[in-house]
C-alpha cells in the first residue's frame, strides 16, 4: 500500500504519545494522513461519521487505527469491541499502542480481535512492522503498477 494513501486514526489522549507516534511514523518514512481523537467517545463518533465528525472530507474514514487502551469516557477495549461488532468495519486493522505490558491486557485484545499489540513508546521499528503487516494483509486492494 502506498503510505500517502493511508489515513491513520490515532486514538490517544496523551499529546506526548501522539507526538512520539508522529515522530516514529516520520522516521519510518510513513507519510500517511494522521487524524487524532483523544477519547473513546470521539473515536466512536469519528468512525460512525456523526457529530463533529460528520464531514467525511475533513474526517475521512481511516485505513488503519492506533488505539490506546486507557482512554477517557469509553475505554480502548470497548472501542475495539464496538469496531469488531460492525460487519462494515471487518477489514479495518486496529493496532493497540498502550503503556501496559500486562499479559491479561494482551490476552483480552487478542480475544477482541486486534491486529497487533505494541507497548509504548512507539518506535520506528514498530511503524515498519505495522506497514509490513498492512502490505501483507491487503494485497488485493493494491493496484498493480
Amino acid at each position, binding site marked *: 500500500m502506498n503510505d500517502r494513501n493511508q489515513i491513520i486514526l490515532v486514538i490517544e489522549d*496523551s499529546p*506526548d*504519545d501522539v507526538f*512520539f507516534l508522529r*515522530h516514529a511514523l516520520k522516521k519510518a518514512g510513513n507519510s500517511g494522513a494522521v487524524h487524532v481523537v483523544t477519547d473513546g467517545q470521539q473515536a466512536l463518533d469519528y468512525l460512525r461519521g456523526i457529530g463533529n465528525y460528520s464531514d467525511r472530507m475533513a474526517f475521512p474514514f481511516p485505513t488503519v487505527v492506533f488505539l490506546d487502551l*486507557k482512554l477517557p469516557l469509553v475505554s480502548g477495549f470497548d472501542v475495539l469491541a464496538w469496531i469488531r461488532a460492525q460487519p462494515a468495519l471487518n477489514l479495518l486493522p486496529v493496532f493497540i499502542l498502550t*503503556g*501496559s*505490558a*500486562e*499479559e*491479561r491486557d494482551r490476552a483480552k485484545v487478542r480475544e477482541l480481535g486486534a491486529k497487533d499489540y505494541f507497548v*509504548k*513508546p512507539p518506535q520506528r521499528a514498530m511503524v515498519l512492522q505495522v506497514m509490513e503487516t498492512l502490505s501483507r494483509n491487503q494485497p488485493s486492494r493494491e493496484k498493480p503498477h
Partner: protein
Amino acid sequence: MKALSEQQFTKPIARSHNKSVELDGHRVPYFEGDPGEQMPAFILSQRLAAIVESSDDAIISKDLNGIIATWNRGAERIFGYTAEEVIGESITLLLPPERYNEEPEILHRIRNGQQIDHYETVRRRKDGTLVDISLTVSPVKDADGRVIGASKIARDITARKRAEAELRSAKDEFARLNEDLESRVRARTASLTEAISHLEEFSYTVSHDLRAPTRSMKCYAQIVLEDFGAKLDPEVKDYLERIRRGAERMDRLIQDVLTYSRLSRSDVAAHPVSLDSLVADIIQQYPEMQAPRAAITVRHPLLNVFAHEPSLVQAVSNLLINAVKFMPAGRVPEITVRSELHGPNIRLWIEDNGIGIKPEHQDRLFRIFERLSTNGHYEGTGIGLAIVRKAAEKMGGAAGVESDGLTGSRFWIELPAASN
C-alpha cells in the same frame, strides 16, 4: 411392718434355684441359709420389704386396672405423695395430662406379659411440678403364671436430664460462638481481601500512570540526542544523556514495581516446565551471560519443575542477571547452574564467584526496595529478589541464598517437582 433385727437382715443366705414359696399371693424364689436350715418365710418377706422400702428409686405395684397397690418411700420422696394418699388410687394420678395416653399402652403391654425397660418419660409430683424419670415396668404373675399386676421402678433422672440439657445448651452456645467467630473471620477476610485488591489496583494504576511521563522524558531526551546530537555542545549532550538515564532508571523501577504488584495480584497456574530449556532460553537472550563476558556452566540435566512459566522465567532471569552483575571489577563471572531433589521439591542452584553477601545481610536481601550495594557500582532497583521470592512463593516454593560474604553467592529457588 415390724423392723428386722440386724442379724435377721445380714445373715447370709443362698439362693435356691429350684424352690419357691407363695408370698403375699405372689410366687417368689425361696432362699436358704446354712445347708438344711430353712429361712422362715416371714423373715424373708420382711427382708425383701426392707430392701424395697429403703430403695432410692420409686418402687410401686399396681393391678391391671392401674390401681396402686404398694408405694415405697422412694416413691414418696420422688412424687411427694404418702402411701396412704395413693394406695387405692389410679396410677394416672402421676401422669401429666399430655401423657395420659401412655398408661393404656403400658397396661396393654403388661397384660401381654411384656416388660418395659428404662423408658424415659415425665411424671407429675403432688405439688404439680414435673419430674423426669426412667421407668421399668414388669408384669407380676401368680402361681399359675397369669399376669395379675405390675411392678414399676421409677428412677428420678432430673439431675441427669438437667446435665444433658446443660451440655446441649453449652454445645449450642459453643456452636453459636464458633459460627459467630467464623462469620467474623469471613467478614474480616473479605474486607482484608477487598482492601488488598484495592491497594494492588491502586499500586498498578499508580505505577502505570507514573510510567507515561517518565517515558516522555526518556523519549524527548532520546529524540533530541538522535535528531540534533550533531549540533549539540558535548556538555549539553552529557546532560541530556543523564536525563535519559535517569528516566530509564525510573522506568525500570516502575516496571519492577508493576511486575511485583502483578505477581501479588494474579493467580499463577502451574504446569510442568523443563528447566533445561528455560535456562538455555534465558542465557540466549542476555549477551552479558554469554562468552567471553561470562562462563555459565549448566549441569545437565536440570530436573523438571511444576511452575507458572512466565513467573519462573522472570525469577530465574533475575537470579542470573544478579549472578553476572555483582562481580568485583575485572573478574569474569563464573556461574554454575544445577538442580537437586529437595524433599518433594526441586532446588535450582545458581552459584557465582561474585562479591558475596555477608550472612547478617541475607535476611534483608529478599525484601522489596532493599539494596545492599551502596557504592553505586551496581545498578539495581532493589526489587529483583523480592520478585524472585514472591514468584517462588506464589508457585508453592521458596527462594534463598547461602554465602559467607567472601567467596561468591549460592542463590536457590525451590519449586514442586514435576515428573522427571
